[in-house]
């Protein structure tokens, strides 16, 4: 047992922290969940992605042949942890983490050429068109249809909750190509140009008031056959396929740690009833509890990364890390809001808002953390059924 990062990884961490310190001005730091970017931050995110790409860091986990550095899982942990802690806004994560790796595994040479280097440079943005109004947790029930017609597919249907679809150049689409087959066996993945006639995007405003996700309507959108990635009707298995990059959720935990550190600064600077809040025994207990749980979450994530680095495939272990980290992110904000008291209602940008209104925004944005990318109920089902082998019925 040795729970340290290697000297090389620590050196990389130092280099990265210094780089982020120099290159990310405080006003460009995102909210804790990156769901409330201003137009300036959004611009910055695009430019910064390209800077990271120039350093070789944006897709460091990719194989060298596709412009990556074949970075080890633990090095990725360091990267994701520090990026999360500094709340660096990013626009390319869908392409870098989901679409690129899928194209590497399942795409043809022509697709690899067309997409991979553009994604790796931070030049092309994908959105994910998976969820539908009637297909959320039960994703495989989705109904958006793609029907073969000559050298194309005609797509009809509706996607919803697609993050940043209004900015994306492509949609990573999961659509039904065989309505007769069992529900998991009739789905196919496509890389669809968002400029295709018949596609309409309608942004949806979040609880925060931000424009983050969208509806996408497909009305007889004609998609060329070469947009199909991988094998027809194997889309579900491709989408769920094991991904060999770090996916423990450590970035979110690091963001929670940052929120805690912001709160620590606040309680040291703030007097209430004549004593600093940091001397209030209840506040001390609450913050220590958060610190403890953040450490638990961190180690649960490290376990997932360690399994991956040993070539093992995490199953319930990643659900455990996720559900713990997701719920903890909410708890940090709940506790934070209680500590801020009456001033906690001041919004981000309002002069005098404690912690710059970030905890207030976080209180709202973290609501989504137990919903997006697998609700905590679904994660617990996985832990119980896969991890503990409890019967489905």
């Amino acid at each position, binding site marked *: *047992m*040795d*729970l*340290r*990062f*290697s000297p090389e990884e620590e050196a990389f961490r130092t280099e990265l922290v210094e780089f982020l310190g120099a290159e990310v001005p405080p006003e460009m730091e995102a909210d804790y969940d990156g769901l409330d970017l201003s137009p300036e931050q959004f611009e910055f995110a695009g430019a910064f992605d390209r800077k990271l790409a120039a350093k070789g860091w944006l897709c460091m986990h990719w194989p060298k042949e596709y412009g990556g550095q074949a970075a080890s899982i*633990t090095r990725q*942990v360091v990267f994701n942890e520090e990026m999360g802690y500094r709340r660096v806004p990013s626009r390319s994560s869908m392409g870098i983490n989901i679409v690129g790796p899928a194209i590497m595994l399942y795409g043809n040479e022509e697709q690899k050429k067309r997409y991979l280097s553009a994604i790796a440079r931070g030049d092309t943005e994908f959105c994910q068109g998976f969820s539908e109004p009637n297909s959320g947790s039960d994703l495989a029930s989705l109904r958006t249809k793609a029907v073969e017609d000559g050298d194309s597919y005609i797509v009809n249907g509706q996607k919803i909750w697609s993050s940043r679809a209004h900015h994306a150049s492509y949609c990573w689409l999961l659509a039904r190509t065989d309505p007769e087959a069992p529900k998991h066996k009739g789905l196919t993945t496509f890389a669809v140009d968002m400029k295709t006639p018949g596609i309409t995007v309608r942004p949806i405003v979040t609880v925060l008031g931000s424009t983050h996700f969208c509806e996408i309507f497909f009305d007889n959108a004609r998609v060329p056959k070469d947009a199909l990635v991988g094998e027809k009707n194997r889309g579900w298995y491709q989408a769920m396929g094991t991904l060999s990059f770090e996916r423990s959720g450590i970035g979110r935990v690091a963001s929670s740690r940052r929120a805690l550190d912001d709160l*620590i600064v606040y*309680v*040291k600077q703030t007097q209430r009833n004549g004593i*600093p809040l*940091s*001397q209030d*025994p209840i506040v*001390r*207990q609450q*913050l*220590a*509890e958060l*610190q*403890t*749980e953040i*450490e*638990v*979450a961190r*180690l*649960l994530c*490290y*376990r997932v*990364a*360690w399994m991956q*680095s040993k070539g093992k495939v995490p199953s*319930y*272990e990643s659900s*455990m890390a996720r*559900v*713990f980290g997701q719920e903890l992110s909410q708890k940090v904000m709940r506790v934070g809001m209680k500590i801020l008291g009456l001033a906690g209602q001041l919004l981000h940008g309002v002069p005098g808002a404690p912690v710059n209104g970030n905890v207030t925004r976080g209180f709202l944005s973290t609501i989504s953390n137990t919903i997006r990318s697998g609700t905590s*109920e679904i*994660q*617990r*089902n996985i*832990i*119980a*059924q896969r*991890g*503990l*082998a*409890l*019967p*489905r*019925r």
Partner: protein
Amino acid sequence: MDFDLNEDQELLKKTAREFLTAECPSRLVREVEKGTGYSRELWEKMAGLGWVGLPVEEDLGGSGAGFLDMCLLVEEIGRALAPVPFISTALCEYALIDGGSAEQKKRLLPRMASGKLIMTPALNDATLSFHPGAIECGAAKKGGGYVIRGAKLLVPYGAIADAYLVATRTGGAGENGITLFIVDRNHKGISVSPVPTIACDARCHVQMESVEVGRESLLGREGDGWPLLKMLLRRGATLTSAEMIGGAQAVLERTVAYVKDRVQFERPVGSFQAVQHKCANMAGACDGARFVTYQAAWLLSENLPCDREVAIAKAWTSDAYTRVCLDSHQAHGAIGFTKEYDLQLYTRRAKAAELAYGDTRHHSEMLADLMGLGVSKSL
């Protein structure tokens, strides 16, 4: 980064599991509860296997194993609820290794390693706090030695231990002026009264009326006992966490087995989502506890800074074990509320372990300090 145990550690765990499964059935645990709270036979067998001597160097009759190895063994002890003064003796062995004179080590460690001399820390005074300021029991110089006056409460295995490691105050306040002594239980002036406790683990109040001891009883330097005691408390918190992760895992496994088997509404109750999610929470509590505990144990093994990690381990694990037990009771229904069913053996010990060597509140307070919130005025 490497979470793996090495081959020797895996083997130690496996051997301990097999041995304790055979030698420490719940029948034994129950019998012992009615008596002294301790099984001499089991203790002697464990000493015979060399386990009691694990921390002690080879020249003095031990095997000089690392602290992580100790924690792995204690994890199995926690799983089996083995009624033996293992943590107590180990903590005293470590204290002697850290701070004992050559003469003390030679005199005491071989006997401790072989299980013939059981020693237990006697730390708590009237306030029952683990903070250094709580140590009141006085020791004053007299002739060439000292005279100790005071009471130590809730001493683990106090009635069956052969000697106590007593924390006293020879002056000063807080961390200053703490002095440690090793005192025989049969020493003149000592009286021991067992107190019934939730875990039936033979805790005692130890009354010391003018106990006169010689210089050879002093452990370390007069007035400078805090670093030794602090180290003991770190190890105590971590070993207790190890005990708890063993117990918690056993409770989780038992619960999962039960809910798979128990049928209501023509299906296993474990197929109900409300039950599944409870089990998922228990699993998260157990795995989280294991990693924070291993982290603290590994840091201690490597002599790396560990105050933060030890506080986190004990703070989390203390809450987690009790929570796991209470969730397990719910998942079991009425059967889990009976004395006959073994779950209660764990629940009562979970509570005792939660309180030993600092509860969640205590360690959270230490952590708050380490987080830069300043030392609390309330201490």
